């Protein structure tokens, strides 16, 4: 039960997904967790709590910013917003992620010779 493997599918994956979701608009932590869970159709079992250390790292890196606001249920929550640095980071990650996928796909594809 090592929390590390559960937090990251591969290093940076969780951050990439968070950035991707935040690109569509600011959101608070709980909603973020729900969106990621729902859109992945529960394929990714992410422990909800693991979002928070990741969010803190991203705050520290300056990819996102956070402000206290009010949720739909009128509860004090922190609302996260993507910053330009975060967008850039996301693009970098997506392209390297695609390269990685392509590489894996090539290896997995049956030999062409």
């Amino acid at each position, binding site marked *: 039960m090592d929390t590390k493997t559960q937090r990251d599918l591969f290093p940076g994956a969780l951050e990439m997904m968070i950035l991707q979701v935040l690109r569509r608009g600011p959101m608070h932590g709980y909603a973020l967790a729900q969106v990621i869970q729902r859109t992945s159709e529960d394929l990714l079992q992410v*422990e909800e*709590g693991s979002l*928070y250390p990741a969010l803190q790292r991203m705050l*520290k890196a300056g990819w996102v910013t956070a402000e206290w606001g009010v949720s739909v249920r009128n509860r004090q929550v922190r609302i996260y917003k993507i910053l330009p640095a975060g967008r850039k980071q996301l693009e970098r990650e997506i392209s390297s992620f695609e390269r990685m996928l392509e590489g894996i796909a090539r290896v997995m594809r049956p030999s062409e010779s």
Partner: protein
Amino acid sequence: MRWRRGRLKEEAAREIAAHIEEKVAELMEAGMPEAEARHQAAREFGNAMLIAEQSREVWSWGWLDRLGQDLRYALRGLRRDPMLMLTAGLTLATCIGANTTVFSIVNSILLRPLPYPGAERIYWVSEHLGREDEVGAGPDYYSLREENRVFEDIAAYDQTTVNWTGVEKPEQLDVAQVTASYFRVMGTQPMMGRYLSPEERGEKAPPVVVLSYAFWRSRMGSDPHAVGETILLDRVPNTIIGVMPQGFDYPNGTHIFRPLPMDEATQRPRSITRPLRSVSMLARLRAGVGPTRLATEMSQLTHNIRAEYPKEFETAGFLKEMSIHAEPVQERLTGDLRPALLVLSGAVGLVLLIACANVANLLLARAATRQKELAVRMAIGSHRRRIIQQMLTESVILALPGGLAGIAIASVMVAVLNAWKPLLLVRHPEISMDVPTLAFTVAATLVSGLIFGVAPAVAARGVNIHDALKSGGQMHGGGRGATRQSLVVAELSISLVLLIGAGLLVRSFVKLANKDLGFQAQNLLTMRVNLAGLQYAKAAGQKAFFEEVLERIKQLPMVRRATVATEIPLGDWWWLGTRLFQIAGRPPLPRAQMPRAGTVVVHRDFFRTLGIPLRNGRIFGYEDTQKSSDKIVVNEAFAREILPGENPLGQGLVVGRDASSQWTIVGVVGDIRGVALGAEPEPLIYRCTCQTDSPFETRMGVIVRTAGDPRAAIHAVEGQVFAVDRNQPVFDVKTMDERLAESLAPQRFHLVLIGTFAAIALVLAALGVYGVLSYLVTRRTREIGIRMAMGARPGEVRRLVLEESFVLAAMAVVVGLGGAWALTRYLQSMLYGVTPLDGVTFAVMPVLLVALAIMASMVPAWRASRIDPMAALREE
């Protein structure tokens, strides 16, 4: 920064709480009861406390923050356990103190560079020539200087003594005769005046001297106008031209530097009919020349210089195996101490290991009672790695007071060493502690902390949360008992290794101290007189002086006998001339195969005064005069090695080129241990002062046998010498017992140190045994209670415990003997008369160790036998 981190901490907690509330609300909206909703929310969220912690950690200074936490926690824990602090502190203070002391010695002598600019580039250049070693031949100095491409400069020097007169108390001074390049090689600047100029050289050099700082300071009263003044050396006025800087002390103890009386013209071209001068050589290596380049160059130079010698040298065997080599001068100076210091370092390191094992055992005992605490911490989400980290921090903290106290102990020990000044260290720099020493101590402390922290930390890894939480905190895992026992076995084994080492040294010491000297050492007073002045340049003058001195000394009431000789047994044997000769009536041998023997010139009463037994023939008497032909007495080693199986009496030795100059053996006397206690007697020729008509030596030893304490006679005997000539200094005044003690000094030094280490090791090991058996008894209280309830007698219970300790000791004996077998060989150079695998030592010490282990377990055994079965069974 602090307020910000405080805020972050609070925010993270608030955010997480909000998340869970949000989820609970959502689940309840979907119709779930609140309790269930809360449960599910918590489960899906994960370990909230851990996550809050991790979120905060993103902002913290990571390890530094954790370290701070661990430190605070450790301090709190240790404060609750002052006995542990005290025991561990004392143990470590002793051992770290001992380690620091030994390191200060090693550092001051072996590691710290000599106090000369670029000292690491100063090399000692020596030649292996014929059978002589470690000297340089005069002509080769000039060749080396011309031909080498690796040295900035090369210097030649030799050492002699002069009499300083014209002052209140005449004194003998140590002189280094040097080439002008000497000062360049050493790289220092004069404190005052100047050094020798290149023109001030050779036999016709003007009488100029450079004073050492110590001499200028103590004998000239730091006279600021010393330069330009004149001092009388061997009654010749010498002009002071300069003073060396403070700290310059090479060759060690030199008072005066003056030009080397050697001229190139008398040395080159080399000729077999001219004596070659022997000189010591120092050289300064060019910057950037590596060891390989140096080695290549030296073998090339050897080759070239060898070729410069005319053929006759080769045929005489003079160039056999000739080689010229260079080694850093510091290595050369410390060569004799190096092996001993390394052995001491190893031994004291082993003591520290034992200390670590002991403290580890203490910590294990503590860890056993802390299992529950650890389990709780793990249950609420602490990583095992984090807990191990924390435990290691704790053990390092525990080591710190020991380290600090160790520094204090070491500084006291260093002061004691410098005050006591064991003879072994006299020629070496003062022992001192410096930054590297402190760095060493800090490192030793941290490393010890980590070493003894490993065992409990590893044990913590094995904590089973469920079991630990279920039991009442009285956990005694079987595995941990085994760890503790193996630690004790390790301690005992290391102690045995040290014990065997100390035992070997004791046996060497006893053998050496009880060695038959070959003469009677009690009630002997010895001193030297160095004759200087024109009236003593010829043998007649010397003889007259000493005859008169002896006559006067013999008149003293406390004096039984008195004699003079060129050497004092167990003195330095500095002037001992080695002579090559042929046996008369035999075909001459080439030089390399010629027999050789040391030559001592003695007064006719020498053998009687010292009590050296006559084995064969006669000793010198009044019939031996200058007019009779040369008669000599030899020692047994001479007869044994040079004339084996023959009657030595009447044999002649041809000592010159001319077969007509012969010495005839008239007597054989017993061997004496003259050079050093440990050295085997070498062939020796005794000549008589009564016969020789060439000046023997100006530096004679006066040996007096007294009726009572020889120290009481010192003043009177000195007075008689001064009565004959006020200007002849008397020096090196010592009783033979003092010389004996000096010659045992290195062995005594090793013995005292290793013995102390072994003693510390034994005490620690005994404590270890006591600790672990007490623990085992506590652990088995119930079992023992049952046994006693079933009718076991106290004696049987005691035996049970003692058997346990016997088994531990027996295992340690096996391991320790193996360790000793592997390690004692490094003691070789410190041993005398015993082999490193000496049977007696290897047999006796294990018995001692087992006895000690049994003794250490007496108290736990007795305690076990006093267990009240009823109380034991009620417990738990």
